């Protein structure tokens, strides 16, 4: 194939533009079955991903059920200004950013530390067991995890409050306290995702060159120094890539789990942008689709900008980037 490629390339430079077009066309014709394979996936992509992007223009219209998207009148940025001026705006932004930031601060480094620690164990039943057990919660559904959280934090029968009582403390109404919400969300996430997130770092750690370790040991490095100077350095590109991706997701806090953990008592701190979109547009009796779409678009755009920013910063500082 490489020889054929070389021949083709030399022909390409020699041939006229018309000839090269013909060649490309011949290649397209020869690969028609590949395009046939792409037909369904591309149709799906256009219908379920790009059509909604096009439809997001209802954010700039006043869409009413009954009218089609194209018949609804343009209103410009009205939906956006309505959102920015609403009393919910700052609360939503604050809650979303705080929950995100807290998740990132706790949920991002813990899997790295966990992977580095697991990597220190010599293979044996303990290592196998802890790895297998740590992935298991990932496979439990969000609904069940939230159900478990509610049972565990129950005011009267939950094991946590029973423990507090045995220790002589008064029970805490965890699910009813606004100030507890972000911690419940973040730490139950740590329980569920640490093992899963660590796998990718363990994969990266398996590429560490053993001769580096040997050389460092000869130089008198201890285990902590090996971890710090060799293991961590090796997985740094993976760490940064994931950090950039996480930055892009900072406004997309786990909608499903937050929605399920919400109740009337903790609403002041638990309402985030994505749950609010659902409530004002799809779940409410008077569906305001345009308003919901505008908030959604704002959310997506800020996410994209944050991702691009994180990518630029990372590229400047470390030469690691997504593009």
């Amino acid at each position, binding site marked *: 194939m490489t020889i054929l490629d070389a021949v083709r390339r030399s022909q390409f430079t020699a041939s006229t533009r018309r000839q090269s077009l013909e060649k490309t066309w011949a290649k397209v014709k020869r*690969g028609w079955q590949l395009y046939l394979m792409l037909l369904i996936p591309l149709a*799906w992509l256009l219908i379920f991903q790009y059509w909604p992007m096009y439809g997001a223009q209802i954010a700039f219209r006043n869409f009413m059920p009954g009218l089609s998207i194209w018949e609804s009148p343009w209103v410009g940025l009205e939906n956006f200004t309505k959102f920015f001026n609403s009393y919910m705006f700052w609360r939503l932004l604050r809650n979303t950013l705080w929950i995100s930031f807290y998740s990132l601060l706790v949920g991002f480094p813990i899997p790295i530390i966990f992977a580095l620690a697991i990597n220190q164990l010599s293979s044996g039943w303990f290592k196998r067991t802890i790895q297998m057990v740590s992935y298991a919660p990932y496979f439990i559904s969000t609904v069940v995890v939230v159900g478990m959280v509610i049972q565990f934090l129950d005011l009267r029968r939950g094991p946590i409050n029973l423990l507090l009582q045995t220790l002589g403390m008064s029970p805490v109404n965890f699910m009813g306290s606004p100030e507890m919400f972000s911690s419940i969300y973040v730490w139950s996430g740590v329980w569920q995702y640490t093992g899963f997130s660590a796998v990718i770092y363990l994969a990266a750690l398996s590429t560490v060159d053993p001769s580096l370790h040997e050389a460092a040991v*000869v130089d008198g490095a201890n285990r902590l120094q090996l971890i710090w100077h060799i293991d961590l350095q090796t997985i740094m590109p993976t760490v940064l890539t994931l950090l950039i991706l996480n930055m892009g997701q900072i406004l997309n806090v786990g909608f499903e789990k937050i929605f399920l953990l919400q109740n009337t008592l903790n609403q002041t701190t638990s309402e985030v942008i994505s749950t609010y979109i659902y409530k004002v547009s799809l779940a409410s009796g008077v569906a305001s689709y345009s308003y919901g779409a505008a908030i959604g678009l704002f959310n997506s755009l800020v996410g994209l900008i944050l991702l691009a920013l994180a990518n630029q910063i990372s590229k400047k500082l470390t030469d690691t980037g997504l593009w």
Partner: protein
Amino acid sequence: MVADVTAQKENPKTKIRERGLDLVFLIFLYFILSLILISLLYPLIFVVSASISDPSAIMAGKVVLFPVGFSLKAYQAILDYKQIWVGFSNSLFYTVAGTLVNLVVTILAGYALSRKDLVGRNFFIFLFAFTMLFNGGIVPTYLVVNELGLINTRWALIIPQALSVWNLIITVTYFRTSIPNELLEAAQLDGCSDIQYLVRVVIPLSAPIVAVLILFYAVGHWNEYFSALLYLNDQALYPLQIILRTILVQNQVDMTMMVDVRSYQAIQAMRELLKYALIVVATVPVLMIYPFVQRYFIKGIMIGAIKG
């Protein structure tokens, strides 16, 4: 460890001192990891213990780690709980049918996009990958699903989720790196068409990636509740997760099922017991297949990591 031994030969004195430090570090590590292991396991053990305990023991808060008393009443109640079984069979359908659709779409796209001679390959990959960075949002997506007439049909949980771009990227990477190019050349010399090649050569060589895809997609479908919340309002179509939400999160239990339970306290106790048993019933199918596919699961993440 091999490194430690060789180093010791070189410079025994300093090594012994550092081994001492390293030993303390290792003991500390095992201690911390044991604590983590316990905290990972405790909730799971507690749920199982609670589900088979005596209802009154739960209400009195006597269950700490091991079951107190023994009763299978909750499991009996689940057997009689019609809605749960409707949800269970619906979820089974969505999982099997949905995963089949996912596999076909992902493999078709994945193979075509893995071929370097595909004209426009980079453009197509960009089209797919861009949706990971930006999307129209839930409201416009809902309107599209609505316009296609999928609302309140079983298709609403299958077609809009027909492809996950992340899984597609893993698949493309697998095809590109694991299927030798020479095979394609040889097959083409024999006059094999692209479709024949995909079906007869590529797919038989793709057991690991197919296992990964089945695992990710099937678990996704089984655990999915939000699409059902958005797109379905006919109870007969509800997947298990929606029923679970009603019982576990919204605390609404249909007590008419339990004819033999009379007093208020007994009903309360039964309600709690039922929740624990339900968590077990809903989670066991997934956790049971998981040890068998564990190595594929790790492999899948690693394939993803290469691309990362």
